[in-house]
Every structure is written in C-alpha cells, then in structure tokens.
C-alpha cells in the first residue's frame, strides 16, 4: 500500500471517529481503496499478518506512577498499578476480552441463581502462585473480603458493597451471595482492585507481590520503575514478552523524547499537538482505541433554569459539537450525543445524532416560556483537556438562540472539590464505567453518590428491573429506554468521547485492543508482543 492510500484511509478513519462519516460509507470507501492496493493494511487496526512471537523486552513510559504506590490492590487507582500489577502479576476470576465480552480467567465457569442473587464460581484446576502454592477457593474469598472490611479505604469498595457474603465449597468453588440480584456481577469481578492474591496465614491476604499472573515481580521502586519477568508456569499459553518494564515519566515532553530516542516502546496519553509529529515518523505510530471516557457539561436539575427539561434541551441543541471537536480537540474525539454510554459498551443504544440547531434551541426556550436566558458555565483547565476553549466556543454557538453563557474560569487546583457537583453548570471529565448498570448507579440513579440532582422515577424503576434480569433481550430493551430518557431529559451535555491515544514503536505487535479500561483493558503485558 502506498503513502497516499495510507493518508486517504487515515482521513476516512478520522471522519468515522468524528461521526462526520457513517460506518457504511467508511466501509465502502475504504474497501475501494483497499482493492486498489494489493498488500493492504489499515493503520492502527489489528494486523492479521502479524503472528505473535515470544521473547524480548517491552518498556512502557507512563505518567501516573506515585511514590505511594504499593502492592495492596485496595490502593490502586492508576493504569500504572492496574496494568503493572493487576494485569502483569495477578489475575481476576474473570477478564474482559478486547471485544468487551467477559471470559473466565482464574474461574472455569460460573452460574447465577435466584434472579442473579447467588453466583457460584468454579475455579480452573492446576493454577499456581509464583511461589508454587496452588490456588484454592479460600484465596479468592480473602482477596474479595479484603475490600469489604467496615473500615475499608479500597477503591473497589463500591463494587463489593453489593456482596452480602462469600462462601467456599471445597478448594475450587466460591459462592457469592449478593444483597440484590445483579446480572452484571461477573463483569464487576474484572475490576482491577479485585485481583486474586494468596490468603495469608491467620486471615487477610499476602501483599508481597506473589500472584498467579503471566509475570513475576522482579523489582519495584515506587514512583520510579517496575520490572517484570515471565512466569514459566502461567495457566495460559502467554505471555509473549520475556520481560516488561514500566518506567515513570511524569512530564509529557520527556515521555515523547523517551519514545523518540528509543528509551521506551510505548507511551500513553500523547498530547494532540504531537500526533502529527509521531505520524510523520516511520518508526512509530499513533494508536487510537475507542474508550468510555467522555467530556461533558453537567447541569444541576434542582437549580433554575436547569430544572426545566425544555431549557435543558435548548442548551443541548445550542452546542455545536463538530466545531469544538475540530477546533479544540483537533479532530481527536468522537461526537457526543447526550448519552454517557459509549458505543463500545454492551447495551449501548444508537439514537439519532443530536445536531446543532438554533431553531430547535429557540423552540424549546419558547416552550419553557422564555425568550432569552443567561447561565454561568464553570470551567477550569483541568476540568477536561480544552474545557475552557470548548466553553468559550459554546458561548458563541448559543448566543444566536438567545442563550447567554458566561464562562466562569475556576482555579484548576481544587476544581473537583469546590466546583464539580457544587456549581449548577460545570465541565466534567468522566472516565466511564465498564458496565451500563455500574455507570448509571454511580452517577444517574436518584441514590447515586455523584448524582447532580437529576431524578427520574421511570429511570430508577428500569434500572432495578434491568439489574436483576438475566435475559439479555429484555435488558437491551430496558437499557435502550433508559438511554433515551437520559438523552431527552437528562442533565448531561456530552461534548465528545475521547480515545485512548498511545504512541507505539513499530516493533511492537498487538491484536484487537480493548478500550473499557486503559492499556488493553489493563492486560497489555500478556497480550502484546515484539516483532523484531
């Protein structure tokens, strides 16, 4: 495939991501291009001709290491700990495959009963920890109960609060009894906090770094580096790398330099201004993995004028998402549709795209009995990358509809403590949640901890129904209706969904890449390989 084909397909892929091109159109136009070139590959997508091979060292330069990092899963909150520890040296009962489906990891199989309230997990046999000890059900019980202690400070606490009790049967069966039915329970067990560690003598878990994972921990210097070496007794025919090294590089420019000078093979979250520089090089490429993270303007519906659904709709129609994506995000982003559920998620519901329309904005203002409104929109540079610029553009978009938006610049430090959920209209950077149920119960149901005042009885009712339902067809219908409610009446204006944007050496190979969590759903160490 020649250079110009590459560029054309890149441009088309760009259009697809931004939503300016439909999937059908994308396929038609790319297949025409591909037919024109014999040895065709789509950049950034999985390359079928690469067969994984074993060996080599993989070095990742990440920005979010901390000197406070440690091996207790309850303290993890970053991709450094998630991919380095959870994905490198530990396993969960289940894992999320790149296509978003859930598969057994340490668990062979599982079975719900009593309307998804009781879950019986059977462990795979013959799994050993790095020290040679065999995995037993008690290890699983202690690992999950670690987060359930009444004084737990674990980041996984919100998940395990659903569990009433855990029992074991012999050495290979674990039975979870939930407080109420939850059909997504296996998904939740893939959360990186819920890694399975060996039980310690006398209760609790042993947090010395002894796991079941694809790699053994060779060395760990908090905030500096983590070194992993292959576990020859791993229960899967993985990993490919002999060694993996995580290197802390907090500064974005230093990270880019490290990649360009060959000190690392992979860097995360590259600045949009550096994309063209990397794409212009023959040694590196930019990888964009659609994810759950979205940038939004959120309204507190207890406060006037946001308590009026028509005012909310007027504000939604007055936002020109294309303009913001093009000018602020330089085309790096997928257009939001006032729905917090990402297209890559199971149960995502496709609705007609809400487009910028002054007429409709005016129409809804009129319905609310208003001609003009004035609102304050609170932003800060860290509310999301480009939040201030996006808000300023939004004010321009909305002005012709009679909507005056005063952009209030807040201090970056303390934004999440003093502005978010405190001011009635503010910019927010949402990381998303792996399941729709989890997302809604964290942010959108009436009793959700981060609910910004929005409450809808039908939505709450559907949420409870869908949670206890194990029939996927019915759940799809419930979740579709819930997403429609949020789209029409909700308190969120989604500006864009952003991709996981990584820069990678061309010597590194990978298959389909998962985006529910960063770094191939945190399992980059065991799924990727070296080509040279």
């Amino acid at each position, binding site marked *: 495939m020649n250079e110009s084909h590459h560029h054309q397909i890149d441009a088309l892929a760009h259009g697809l991501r931004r939503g300016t091109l439909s999937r059908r159109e994308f396929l038609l136009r790319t297949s025409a291009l591909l037919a024109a070139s014999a040895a065709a590959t789509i950049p950034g997508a999985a390359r079928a001709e690469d067969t994984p091979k074993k060996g080599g060292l993989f070095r990742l330069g990440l920005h979010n290491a901390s000197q406070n990092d440690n091996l207790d899963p309850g303290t993890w909150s970053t991709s450094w700990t998630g991919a380095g520890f959870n994905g490198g040296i530990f396993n969960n009962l289940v894992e999320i495959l790149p296509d978003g489906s859930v598969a057994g990891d340490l668990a062979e199989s599982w079975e719900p009963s009593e309307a998804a309230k009781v879950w019986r997990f059977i462990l795979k046999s013959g799994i050993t920890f790095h020290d040679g000890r065999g995995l037993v059900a008690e290890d699983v019980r202690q690992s999950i109960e670690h987060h359930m202690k009444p004084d737990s400070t674990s*980041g996984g606490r919100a998940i395990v609060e659903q569990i009433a009790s855990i029992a074991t049967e012999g050495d290979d069966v674990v039975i979870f009894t939930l407080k109420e039915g939850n059909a997504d329970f296996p998904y939740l067990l893939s959360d990186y906090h819920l890694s399975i560690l060996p039980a310690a003598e006398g209760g609790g878990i042993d947090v010395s770094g002894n796991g079941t994972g694809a790699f053994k921990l060779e060395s760990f210097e908090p905030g500096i580096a983590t070194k992993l070496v292959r576990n020859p007794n791993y229960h899967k025919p993985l990993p490919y790398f002999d060694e993996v090294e995580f290197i802390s590089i907090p500064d974005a420019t230093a990270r880019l*330099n490290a990649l360009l000078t060959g000190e690392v093979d992979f860097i995360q979250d590259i600045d949009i201004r550096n994309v063209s520089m990397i794409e212009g090089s023959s040694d590196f490429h930019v990888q964009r993995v659609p994810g759950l993270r979205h940038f939004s303007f959120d309204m507190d519906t207890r406060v006037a004028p946001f308590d009026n659904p028509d005012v909310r709709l007027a504000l939604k129609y007055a936002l020109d998402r294309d303009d913001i994506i093009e000018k602020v995000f330089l085309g790096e982003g997928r257009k939001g549709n006032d729905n917090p559920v990402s297209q890559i998620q199971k149960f995502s519901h496709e609705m007609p795209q809400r487009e910028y329309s002054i007429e409709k904005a005016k129409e809804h203002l009129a319905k609310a009995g208003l001609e003009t409104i004035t609102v304050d929109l609170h932003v800060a540079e860290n509310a999301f990358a480009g939040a201030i610029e996006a808000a300023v553009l939004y004010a321009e978009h909305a002005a012709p509809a009679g909507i005056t938006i005063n952009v209030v610049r807040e201090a970056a430090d303390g934004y999440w403590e003093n502005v978010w959920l405190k001011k009635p209209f503010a910019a927010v950077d949402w990381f998303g949640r792996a399941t729709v149920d989890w997302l809604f119960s964290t942010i959108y149901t009436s009793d959700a901890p981060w609910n910004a005042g929005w409450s809808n009885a039908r939505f709450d009712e559907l949420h409870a129904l869908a949670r206890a339902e194990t029939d996927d067809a019915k759940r799809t219908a419930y979740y579709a209706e819930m997403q429609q409610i949020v789209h029409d009446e909700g308190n969120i204006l989604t500006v864009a969904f952003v991709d996981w944007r990584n820069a990678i050496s061309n010597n590194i190979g990978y298959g389909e890449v998962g985006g529910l969590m960063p770094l191939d759903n945190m399992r980059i160490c065991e799924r990727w390989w070296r080509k040279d």
Partner: protein
Amino acid sequence: MTRKPRPILSMVASRVGLGVLSLVIVSLVIFSAVAMLPGSYASAILGQNATPEAVAAMEEQLGLNEPWFLRYLGWLGAAAMGDMGMSFAGRPVMDVIGPRLLNTVVLASITAVIAVPVSIALGIVCARFRGRFIDKFLSTSTLASISVPEFFVAYIVMMVLAVKLQLFPSMAGIRASMDWGDQLYRMVLPILTLLLVILAHMVRNTRAAILSVMASPYIEMARLKGEPEARVVMRQALPNAIGPIASVVALNLAYLISGVVVIEVVFVYPGVGQAMIDAVRNRDVPVIQACALIFAAAYIGFNLIADVISIISNPRLLHPR
C-alpha cells in the same frame, strides 16, 4: 577587658540555634499552606473511586478530621525526636525519601566537585586577563547561559547530545539495580546541564569579587613593588576575595540540593524534588514536610559554612562595630 574564649564556636552555636528556629517556622508555614490547599489525600488518591464512604474512612484512619494545628503539633513533637513519621500511604517517610535524597546528593556532589574548582579557576583567569579576549568570551557566554531558563538549556543539551548525535541516553532514570558505571553514564546529561547553569553564576561572581579587591590601594602598592600580575592575583587579591566567593558557592550548592526539580523532570531523574511534587499532588503532608525541611536545612547549612569560611579568611567580621 573580657575576651570571649572561642569566638567562632559561640558564633556557630548561636547561628545553629537560629537555624533550628528558622526550620520550625518553615515547617509551620508549609504545614498551614498545605492545610489551606483544596482537596485532601483521600480525594486525591481515590480519584474517580472517591465515594463519600471511602473518603470518610480514609480521613478517619489518617486522622485528617482533626484540626490542622493539632496535627501540626503532633508532627512537630515527633519530628523533634527525629521521627519523620509515616507517609499517608503507610511507609516510613525516610523510606520514601531516602533513596531519592541519595540520588539528589550524588548528582549534586558530582556536579559540585567539577563545578567549584572549574568556576573559581575560570573566574581567576577572567580577572587576571580582564578586558582581553578570554575574559570577554567567558563573560558573554556566561551571561547568555544565565539569561536562558534552565529547562531550555536542558532541552538544547538533550537535542544535540541525545537526539542528534545519540551519544547519551535522553533519560537519566537511574535505578538501584543498575551498576555504578551505568548510573554515571545516564547522569551525564543532567550533570552537564547543571554545570552550564551554575558555572556561569560562580564564574561571574568570582571575577567580580577578585576585581573589587584589585581596586584596593594595597594591590597597587604590590604592583609598584614589581610583583608579577599572576602573583598579585593569586597571593594578594584572592585570599581577600574568599568570603564573597564562598557565599556564592554556598548558594549554588544549596540550589543543587533543592532547586533542580526542573532538571529532574526533564531528564526523568528520580531525585527528591520529584518526590516533593508527587507529595504535593497527593497532599501527602508528612512527605512534604520532610522535603521542605531538607531543602531549608540545605540553605541554612551551606550559608553557615560560607559565613564561617568568610570569618576565618577575614577575622575582622567577628567583631562588628
């Protein structure tokens, strides 16, 4: 007339006392400033998992729900006994900072061992050949290097030596597992950058100090008696310029301990400056306090040494009128 038995010792003792007082004031200022910052360790660490229950549980365990001055007094009491306490993540503060402080001290020492003799020698050369080509060249180039921000010097050095010529690694991320030679090789670029930054300052001040002494009448007397110019500079002028030179050297050494955070970030060098940034981001107060104390102690300590050297070289300073 009563004469103090050992004037230098008593001067040192009183200065150490004042230094300790300064440290206490610094620690109070830092502690209260961090307490006034929005956000807490719990919300910083839990991020998007910071449900109200988890935050409350963590603040309770860390004692963050007490008023800040009570926490300060508790910290001060322990620190006075030499116990820097535990970081909020549950590791002893000295375990967190220790290896990084060692890295900083190694970087600073190597830089200082090269920089101090070289800069004093260059300063003397400038003073001896004042107005000649070598003086003009060094004055111009040092002025240029002072005027440019240090991160810019770092990027220039990196671009030329790491990216274009590929002589040295762009990252100085040394680790305990590397052997000495490897560590030293990785430290070349940060050392070179620091040299460029502090050499300029010290050369200019050495030159200025010597030249101001050279304007004294006794130097003219020495010249009139026929002493060679080199001997005038080395034997007559230099000993009287030691005080000001020691001051500027002390200032630069303290900078090497506490001020090189920008260089650390650019070259990914795991020094104590990055430890402090990390701690401030997480509101990890015990680590912030320990770093602040180290930095303040470096300034106070080096200045004290410089003053002692000045006094030894010029005993008149002991008896201010």
